[in-house]
């Protein structure tokens, strides 16, 4: 069996206390190291819930989530924060940059959160990532003074800054035009090859999904299809 960086065992998610809505049903799923995966499915099928549970942003109602063999469901809030900082990079549909900071400062933020001193080496890495996403010229712009595509690319550079093993992306191109969408996916793919980062990307764009090594379809809170190339 290949090395699994993410593993879900019997994950269920129920929202609400009075009126209970079950969103995920007995999900068993594993993602291999260095793989490039996409998750598709209709709106409301439970994709985001699943991704948030993988990313420790949310806890499953029952079941286990293992990242690199570590049961995250047992970890404290602080340990989870540390784990997110070091091993997971998030890219959301709405880029979620810190508007008070420049693009460059946003990219450096995960390093600062880790408490690592900003050395010349780290600055060089930030510059390199900004170059990779094509933002060298606007790196000192405040987040709010950039186009949507630029902001999303900043978020990608930020997600990569701490060399996370896993990148979780929830419709990262959801509000970008199709040309930019194509660019962003090519970029993610390139990063996957270059840095051996595991990607799990939610997308509603079948064309994009097909570029992945594996397509997982979620339907009504269950894995309906699991297609590997």
């Amino acid at each position: 069996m290949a090395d699994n960086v993410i593993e879900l065992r019997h994950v269920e998610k129920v929202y609400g206390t009075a009126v209970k809505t079950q969103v995920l049903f007995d999900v068993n799923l594993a993602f291999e190291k260095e793989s490039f995966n996409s998750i598709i499915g209709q709106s409301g099928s439970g994709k985001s819930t699943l991704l948030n549970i993988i990313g420790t942003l949310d806890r499953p109602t029952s079941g286990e989530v293992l990242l690199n063999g570590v049961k995250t469901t047992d970890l404290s809030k602080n340990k989870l924060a540390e784990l997110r900082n070091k091993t997971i990079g998030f890219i959301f549909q709405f880029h979620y940059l810190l508007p008070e900071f420049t693009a460059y400062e946003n990219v450096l933020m995960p390093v600062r959160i880790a408490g690592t001193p900003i050395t010349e080496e780290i600055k060089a890495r930030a510059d390199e990532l900004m170059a990779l996403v094509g933002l060298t010229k606007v790196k000192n712009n405040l987040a709010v003074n950039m186009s949507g595509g630029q902001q999303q690319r900043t978020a990608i550079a930020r997600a990569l800054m701490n060399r996370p093993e896993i990148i979780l992306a929830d419709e990262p191109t959801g509000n970008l035009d199709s040309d930019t969408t194509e660019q962003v996916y090519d970029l993610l793919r390139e990063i996957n090859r270059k840095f051996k980062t595991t990607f799990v990307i939610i997308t509603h764009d079948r064309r994009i999904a097909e570029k992945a090594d594996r397509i997982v379809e979620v339907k009504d809170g269950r894995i309906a299809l699991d297609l590997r190339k």
Partner: protein
Amino acid sequence: MLPFKIALRFLKSSLGQTIGIILGIGVGVSVQVFIGSLITGLQASLVDKTIGSSSQITVKMKEDDQYIEDYAEYIAYIETLPNIASVATTLDANSVLFTENKPVIVRGTDLADSDAIYKLSDKLVRGRLPAADYEVVIGESLFAELGYALGDTIDIYNPPTGSGADEHKFVTVVGTFDFQVALTNDTLIVTTIPTVQDILNVGDVVSTVITQLDEVFDSDLDAASIAAFIADDAVEVIDWKTQNESLLSGLNGQTASSLMIQVFVTLSVVLGIASVLAITVLQKSKQVGILKAMGIKDSQASFIFLSQGMILGVFGAITGLLIGLGLLYSFTTFALNADGTPVVPLSIDPGFMALSALIAFSSASLASFIPARKSTKISIIEVIKNG
């Protein structure tokens, strides 16, 4: 310190709001500083008018016709007390101006020491203070009434005391004073102690030991230790406080109301900061959610808001001190009486101002605990779901 830097950036990015809060705190602090300085100043001037030119702790015999013999010993002890600013002695004789047949009090005092208490040199109208025995200064009104000239000799008559001493003493008028109290101006004659000892035909004795204090409100403590040292039932130690109870209760009332005002000002500043900071948590909940997704810990997130409170507190306190000082400066510079003294007596006490600043800083920090706690409850999921 990342949370601190983030706090600073948050504050900078909404500069208008930040300045508003700082000004709010500043006005609170300046009101506090101003009211505090005003009340303290008023009290100080009232106390000074009441006891500034008189003895604050007085040692005398209980019987009026007795004198203190061991005064040198008492003074030596009193001078060791740290709160004592000055000590002097007086010897009073009830005499008569023989020529005019007018009753007077001839007060001998060691002017070198007692001037610090009576401020006689400030009250001098003409001439000079007595420099040798048998030189006197008298009230300006008495001087005018009797038509004296400086250098005139006056005949002081004292009824015989049984020893058959010479009843007439001749002294020279070398100056006049104005105590702004009619009775004093009309009846007091000030000279040296040996002169009065001669008039009374007594040995080396005085009738009172008089003092002034650095901390006038601690007079009861010093009076108690002086009484304990003297330990003589015939001797009385009189503390100004026991003689000015109504003044004291007035002062206490003022202090209490000033404190109340300051407490309410502080309270409204705290509530103001707390509510504004609570709003900034809401404003920044998206950022907090993003930071948490990137791995910031709850403790760090709350420290962002604590830092905001502290930064606002520091700048608010500084602003308050500046406004307060400005107010005090303009009041003491531009609102003057004809004689150049300020209309409103203000006491500018750096210690009190530092305390006000500290209170503002602490209350701002304290107020920020509420938003800091709130920030730990921000859920990442809620933030990313709601865009």
